[in-house]
């Protein structure tokens, strides 16, 4: 199955995750938890289903089965594969999924983190337009190795609403289609190679209608890592997949290794270049 959004792998070993088409149940039998879109089985299997669009079954954190009856376009499959399904795989494998879009600043990665709607992708797009390579959009898998936090590069395709595209000076039509007829479009940004990148800073993005100029400040202590949802992709899913303690431990480890900032931006119009300077400054001070 072609997945054009992924960077080319750098290793030559056996794959540790397989994606194949196969039978996927409509619902799981006796799930231990369920929502309109996701069910968790007693055996830890995760069913992700967008009704009448696409269905995936994640088994053992290493096997993803795409519903053989799904006739959705590749771009639609990728939309949900690289979001909810990726989150389920990472939580199931015990890998920390930072809820962030990530760009390179110098030789380190800077993660732009926050819950949905904060403008992570828009900011990553702005950074990309200012010459920064994109490491990943929305989810950053973090590995803790030799006293460093390393980010595994993911799809460098940034998903943008029309107003964000306009902010970036891009015409809506120049962007790729994600879900056909959906107003969100996809910017194919310049990405990195597939090798893990050292994380230099985490920037939590926030919005405040009351301000007119962006503000950056460093967070410390418990306020740096709470609420957990600001940093962990779909934290509740992780907690239900036995990661309650592991996620907290990883957050503490992250905060010990990497400076965590908060970038508060106004809601209305503002100069994107101001944000670029502020994000760059976090990587510089990390050195």
């Amino acid at each position, binding site marked *: 199955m072609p997945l054009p959004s992924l960077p080319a792998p750098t290793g030559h070993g056996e794959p540790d995750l397989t994606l194949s088409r196969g039978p996927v149940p409509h619902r799981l039998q006796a799930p231990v938890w369920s*929502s*309109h*879109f*996701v069910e968790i089985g007693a055996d830890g299997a995760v069913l992700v289903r*967008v*009704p009448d*669009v696409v269905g995936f079954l994640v088994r053992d954190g290493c096997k993803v089965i795409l519903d053989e009856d799904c006739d959705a376009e590749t771009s639609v499959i990728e*939309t*949900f594969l690289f*979001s*909810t399904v990726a*989150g389920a795989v990472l939580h199931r494998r015990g890998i920390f999924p930072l809820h962030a879009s990530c760009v390179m600043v110098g030789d380190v990665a800077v993660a732009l983190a926050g*819950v*949905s*709607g904060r403008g992570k992708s828009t900011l990553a797009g702005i950074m990309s337009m200012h010459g920064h390579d994109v490491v990943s959009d929305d989810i950053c898998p973090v590995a803790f190795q030799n006293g460093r936090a390393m980010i595994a590069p993911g799809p460098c395709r940034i*998903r943008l*609403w*029309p*107003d*964000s595209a306009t902010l970036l000076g891009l015409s809506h039509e120049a962007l790729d289609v*994600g*879900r056909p*007829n*959906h*107003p*969100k479009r996809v910017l194919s940004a310049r990405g990195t190679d597939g090798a893990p990148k050292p994380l230099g800073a985490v920037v939590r993005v926030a919005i*405040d*209608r*009351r301000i007119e100029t962006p503000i950056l400040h460093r967070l410390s202590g418990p306020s740096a890592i709470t609420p957990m*949802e600001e940093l962990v992709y*779909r*934290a*509740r*899913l992780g907690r239900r997949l036995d990661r309650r303690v592991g996620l907290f431990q990883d957050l503490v480890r992250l905060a010990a290794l990497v400076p965590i900032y908060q970038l508060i931006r106004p*809601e*209305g119009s503002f100069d994107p270049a101001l944000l670029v300077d502020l994000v760059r400054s976090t990587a510089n001070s990390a050195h």
Partner: protein
Amino acid sequence: MADAATIGWIISYPKSGNTWLRLMLLSLMQGGAAVDINGIGNEAGLANHVEMDELLVVESSELFPNEQVAAQPDLNMAIAAETGPGLKLRKVHDRYWRTPEGVAVFPASASRGAVYLVRDPRDVAISLSHHRGITVDSAIAAMADPTATLSESIDRQRRQLAQPLGDWSSHVRSWMEQLDIPLLLLRYEDLLADPTQGLRSVAGHLGIAHDAGAAQAAVDATRFEGLRAQEQAHGFGERKPGSTAPFFREGSAGGWRRDLTSEQAARILMDHGETMRQLGYACGANGT
């Protein structure tokens, strides 16, 4: 009462005193303590995309509107279950509605009760025009639009989920006519005239234990002058960019007599007269 019945819906058409009533209730639930107008947020907010993404585990911004709608009853059940038993207040601007499959978006099994705060639509029109930075005539037209919807995601990410309003009359009627959730109808003007009495009736309806002293303290902690002073000092996150007045603008009833032209008042009467009369908004031949 089912275990999941934890939500108290605080419902109103926009600009009808919803924020004031929720601040009073939050103060009352803390024994009449002072409240921070910028601290209420998700504690009693409108259903939003972050909640859908986090509670239902999905990328809601990648969904089409009909796919979001189909998930909204589930979302409200998840909100009710999220923090266990105990009353949760939720602000609502939606009319009472069902998904195309016929499922109630506000599930009775998750609902402890509903309070509908209604305000003279002639005052609403003035307040709405300031809030949105539009003319009074545009506000009056919006209040007569049966397809009116808040926070539709057309070209940009919205914080809140789309909320069908309909026109002003059908909004209040939709809640008065539903039989699934016990409803207390409260007039903004009555709450203004006797806030302690109004607050106590709401607290009684939602099962909030309190005494007279706490109710009085909650009223004192949320007086209009104090809320306006907080907004002047710190701003208010719910004020729309482009508004032409503070969010806490006037806090009074009957301003329409001063601010509406007789044609505008007559137009509102023509659009909503039947419902206005039913709610006791005197509608004599001269529109007063």
